[in-house]
């Protein structure tokens, strides 16, 4: 039982790691520039595995929010670790710039004008 869980988990993890689409290429040998810069910025040095899982998580969320699955892979690949972390934290709360639409503020102003002048 425990063995099959362990096997299943490791299979899933391996499939993330081996999925070239979600994987920012990692060299086993040299230290990558983005790692050095990240350390310069904040001294943080995260585990590679967490990062893979987060990318997979964000990709799934994008699909859930209506993005084409193929496109979601390309989108995730175009973002930095930092940006992926931001999206993991709140894809549903982050500002989504939209532009023209009748905002709540317009409706509120309407109510206030009505209250002041037409009551």
């Amino acid at each position, binding site marked *: 039982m425990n063995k099959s869980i362990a096997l299943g988990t490791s299979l899933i993890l391996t499939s993330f790691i081996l999925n070239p689409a979600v994987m920012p290429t990692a060299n086993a040998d040299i230290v990558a520039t983005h790692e050095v810069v990240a350390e310069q910025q904040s001294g943080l040095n995260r585990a590679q595995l967490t990062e893979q899982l987060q990318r997979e998580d964000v990709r799934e969320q994008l699909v859930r929010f209506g993005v084409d699955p193929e496109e979601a892979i390309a989108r995730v690949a175009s973002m930095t670790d930092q940006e992926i972390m931001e999206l993991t934290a709140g894809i549903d709360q982050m500002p989504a*710039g939209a532009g023209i639409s009748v905002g709540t503020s317009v409706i509120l102003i309407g109510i206030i004008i009505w209250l002041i002048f037409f009551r």
Partner: protein
Amino acid sequence: MTARFFPMLIALLGLSILTGCASAPMQHRTLNTAEFTPVELVNTPFFPQDAYQCGPAALATVLVVSGVDDMTPDVLKPQVYLPEREGSLQPELLGAARRADRIPYPIQPQLAALFTELEAGHPVLVLQNLGVQRWPRWHYAVVIGFDPQREEVILRSGTTEREVMSLRRFEQTWQLGAYWGVVVTEPGQIPATAEPVRYLAAVSALEQQQRFDTAIKGYEAALRRWPREYTPAFGLGNIAYQQGRYADAEMHYYHATELAAEEPVIYFNLAWALLRQGKRDEAMLAAEIAQMLAPDHDRYGNAVAVIESAD
């Protein structure tokens, strides 16, 4: 009497919410407008947005200015639009700029940085909140001009080709957008207000995605702008290494060590570049230096053993 009093009270309450109860200090009050000259980047193209499409429209505007001639909002829409949110998220705009082989640079959250970029000829993509803090109405626009005398900001925004906002009103909307602004320059150009680490982080994102040609231009430009920083040379070395040009990598790493003689990471990567060329003795020497500089480090602390056991 009371029948009239209550609606008034509610109205006043509503007004106080609308004005945002802004407590953070506004920058425009202390901004020295005399430092700036009037500027309007009139050649900036204009893409009137369709419903909810201000993200693609604003991004296409700055990408065309940066030399991506055939860019249109329609190309960008599938790359940045999030249907269930009816809008676009900031990280996705940055990602789409990279997919167009450009280096997006988020500027410092300051009006002064924004206007300095305009003076350098770079329009700035900004996130605004046109609603209030509690009921936000997020919007992307492109700032193309500033008139310091009249204290007015000029934007390409939504369906308005030339929107003029008072500096005060603009800052209110930009402050609610956490002063988020992005500059996209032509390859080989660095934003006027760029800071080394921030800019190099922006370039390394391209390197990580193996957009090597663009990243090389970014690092080379950084090397010219900040000749005493080692990271650009280090980055050029890493790209050469990833492309299998180990002799070039060695040269760039040596250059980096001249700029920062005590950074173990450079010697660590140098050791690999030497090893890949079959220079085993020199590689061991570089590994020893890396280990000596950071004996307790997870990675560099074992440099000698790692290089020794590598094939």
